[in-house]
């Protein structure tokens, strides 16, 4: 073996050394049951054919590589944005590990959540004792200011009633009577993480607002939604609001939660919206959601308590940001400040400067429903075509809305909407109707490798690149950073493929 202390190879390189190559080839020859390589190639090519595509799209029972996560993940994320809040997942013991891993890998930060760890006994007798003991233990172990309870499938299938269970737990003094324990039912077999986010947001707000006396005021609440770029985006949102002289309550502010410093202090809880802010939020005049599909039920509840509501679809780019800021200005009764006008001008200037490279590019966009809508609109603003818009967790209503968006622009002609499809569907779609770029999350890297279409990571989760979420994609300045990612991808490809056109100036 070639290993030596002077040149220790990590496994990406180690197993490319000659003797490992030989060993691996032997393995393939002896244990693969030896399909000839030309047959393997033939089959692989067939899986990129229209024939395979038809078969693939006809798939109805099997889901392959879905671009969505489950409700409890969204609930844990929503709860994390409230100060001192511990997520408590009522269900089988193993599920919460996934949520913690998913969030930790994307944000590169600790992600705290606990489980009621139900076993077979609970399947027979119900989960009350697990929840009662669990709340007591969580409260004692972690000293939270709030415990937000969500469910996994098991609790739903056996029919656990969280509301009465929590009442019972307080009677048994697992937690003090006035200690906030909001809850939401979040079975994985309904909807996706965006629904879980919605349910938990509604659960938390209900816990404080239901039955409380409202003194209508002029305040504004903003619900960011489930957002992999929440750290950078919420900070940018606050900066823009500051420039406008507007104060608003961010309902679930994870920007500090998922970006704690290394300064010698361990923060199990850092930042987040305070309980006082939640309570005061009841009196707001308006609650604005930045992601419609993450907040349908929550906004309905806000209307029930007497607030005006508005929602956006992950406002990105010129038009998206314009509309959002105009709404804020309208509700708050302020003007758009010169500083933001300049920022808009700079974004438009950047688009104009680079339009020769942006116009006519084609994209496949996959991810959460709001994000896909936003990104499709933004690429059309640049003269690009969002050829394929896919949301595994997209509904029929979402599909209709997306089709209307595409129909509103000549650059949307011939583009297709794929609601409910997964990334294996997308592989067939792109193998037969390619696009220049993929926009989505880390799971798209298999498509990038397989089909040679560059991937731009702009959605949750991003596991294989670091720290992108610390910079905004919201706002005019955030939109420029999206444009830069797209342009860098275009130029990198130009340079990689160029021979006589390897130009110094682009």
């Amino acid at each position, binding site marked *: 073996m070639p290993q030596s202390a002077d040149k220790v190879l990590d496994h990406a390189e180690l197993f490319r050394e000659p003797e490992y190559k030989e060993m691996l080839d032997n393995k393939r020859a002896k244990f693969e049951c030896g399909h000839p390589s030309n047959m393997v190639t033939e089959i692989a090519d067939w899986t990129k054919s229209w024939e395979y595509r038809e078969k693939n799209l006809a798939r109805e029972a*099997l889901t392959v*590589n879905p671009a969505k996560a*489950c409700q409890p993940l969204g609930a844990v994320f929503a709860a994390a944005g409230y100060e001192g809040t511990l997520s408590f997942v009522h269900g089988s013991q193993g599920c919460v590990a996934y949520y913690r891993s998913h969030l930790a890998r994307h944000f590169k930060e600790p992600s705290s959540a606990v489980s009621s760890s139900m076993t077979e006994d609970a399947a027979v007798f119900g989960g009350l004792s697990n929840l009662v003991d669990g709340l007591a233990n969580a409260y004692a172990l972690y000293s939270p200011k709030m415990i937000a309870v969500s469910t996994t499938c098991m609790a739903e299938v056996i029919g656990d009633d969280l509301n009465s269970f929590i009442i019972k737990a307080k009677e048994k003094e697992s937690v003090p009577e006035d200690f906030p324990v909001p809850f939401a039912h979040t079975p994985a077999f309904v909807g996706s993480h965006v629904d879980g986010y919605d349910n938990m947001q509604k659960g938390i707000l209900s816990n404080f607002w239901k039955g409380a006396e409202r003194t209508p005021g002029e305040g504004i609440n903003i619900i960011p939604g489930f957002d992999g770029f929440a750290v950078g985006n919420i900070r940018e949102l606050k900066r823009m609001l500051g420039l406008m002289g507007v104060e608003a309550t961010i309902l679930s502010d994870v920007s500090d939660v998922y970006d704690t410093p290394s300064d010698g202090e361990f923060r199990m809880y850092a930042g987040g919206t305070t309980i006082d802010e939640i309570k005061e939020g009841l009196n707001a005049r308006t609650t604005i959601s930045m992601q419609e599909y993450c907040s349908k039920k929550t906004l309905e509840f806000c209307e029930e308590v007497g607030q005006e509501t508005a929602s956006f679809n992950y406002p990105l780019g010129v038009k998206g940001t314009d509309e959002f800021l105009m709404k804020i200005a309208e509700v708050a009764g302020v003007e758009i400040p010169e500083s933001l006008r300049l920022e808009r001008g700079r974004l438009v200037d950047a688009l104009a400067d680079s339009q020769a490279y942006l116009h006519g590019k084609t994209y496949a966009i996959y991810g959460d429903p709001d994000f896909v809508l936003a990104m499709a609109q933004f690429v059309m603003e640049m003269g690009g075509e969002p050829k394929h818009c896919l949301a595994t967790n997209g509904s029929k209503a979402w599909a209709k809305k997306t089709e209307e968006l595409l129909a509103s622009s000549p650059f949307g002609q011939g583009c297709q909407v794929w609601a409910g499809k997964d990334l294996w569907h997308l592989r067939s779609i792109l193998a037969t109707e390619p696009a220049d770029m993929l926009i989505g999350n880390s799971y798209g890297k298999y498509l990038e490798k397989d089909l040679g279409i560059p991937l731009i990571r702009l959605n949750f989760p991003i596991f294989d690149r670091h720290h992108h979420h610390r910079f905004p994609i919201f706002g005019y300045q955030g939109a420029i950073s999206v444009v830069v990612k797209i342009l860098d991808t275009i130029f990198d490809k130009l340079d990689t493929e160029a021979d006589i056109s390897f130009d110094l100036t682009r």
Partner: protein
Amino acid sequence: MSEALKNQVAAVLNEPACATNRSKDDAARKKGCTKQLTPGAAAGGCAFDGAMIALQPVTDVAHLVHAPLACWGNGYDNRGSASSGSDLYRTGFTTDLSELEIVMGQGEKKLFRAIREVIEQQSPAAVFVYSTCTTALVGDDIVPVCKAAAERFGTPVIPIDVPGYVGSKNLGNKLAGEALFKYVVGTMEPEVSTPYDINIIGDFNLSGELWQVKPLLDKLGIRILGSVAGDARYAQIAKMHRARVTMLVCSKALINMARRLEETYGIPFFEGSFYGISDTSAAIRTLCAMLVERGAPADLIDRAEALIAEEEACARAALEPFRPRVAGKRVLLYTGGHKSWSVVSALQELGMEVVGTSVRKATEEDKTRIAEIMGTEAHMFENMAPRDMYAALRAARADVLMSGGRSQFVALKARVPWVDVNQEKHEPYAGYMGMVNLLDAIDRAINNPLWADLRTPAPWDAPPAPAAPVTPLDLSAMAGTRADFEDC
């Protein structure tokens, strides 16, 4: 769950091959070796997770999870098992059951159609169908569905009945082993049998670790006929009944499978480790001795000794440049059961001081061994909440934490370097040269200038108080909790 599964769980929990289990009274034995779960604490993996860990490395199989999205949709391709062939195991297949399908009892029909679709569109060597909490609770019986599908489509369809709520990750490992034994082992015959055929059980080829050892076995002419499941092909499980010896690598997770192979096919097994130079040599010696007892030519012993001498010399020479850079460094270990003692041993060979090791997943036997190796029980501790781990890292003044990914950020906040030695690691550490890799990783972690900068107060802060004098630290006395802070 079904009576069949209930009985199987009870049987698995009463593992005759487990020395610890044999020493228990009947009541304790019935309870099994699972730690008591603590509601309200951070929970770790479940039985489904354990089964998936054990079986996903079978690379040419389509792993189809019969569940709502969560169990697999959130987590596909999140392990670091490496493959020399098919990538099929990295694809996330699920029936993604919806509420309507659950309420209406349509799960089994959907499963059958999903199996058809996966076979038609992916041509796997086999399909492993995993049950989960939801499908078990609503009464979907995957066994007859798999049987019918196998008959209909001509591809093996193996039921893995592992709803998460039945128990721990360790239990899931065992249930997976039972399923393989029941449905797969013995269903194919090797083209040739040799006196050098072995099974390796419990290695998952994380970051290609199996491949750091295989060249050694190749040099000795030893063939890995059966594998559960590192870089495995379905055929390598189907044929494992023809091996001469079984080596069990992960000390307890799949012992039931090793025992069954011995009972049914007369294949003796031993437990060994490839972590650390001494353990690697010991494992090779034991393996060769057993092969010779089972009919391999006697010269295998001498060839093995020659190989061991050569490799040990080479490895120790390669390690020497690192020794001055890591000797005396203080290591805190927070890992699973078998790694607790095998890694301690390996690190001590390198002159490092292990200031603490978690025993939360260790068996009594593991703990005894650790006490022997470390010469004291003062360094053993149970689970820790993040803030307690943080305090321990500082109190023990560890230079490096070796653990899995979810402790990473606690270590970093405590300004302590961290090396990933768990299932998601990116570098292989097995075999003789695996130690070189591990040393390099530790060296790079500890000697990164970042830590000096990080620990140096920011220029606007007052200098820190002088360091307290070193006193022996009894980690076992630290305030902690038996709550299960599952890390992997």
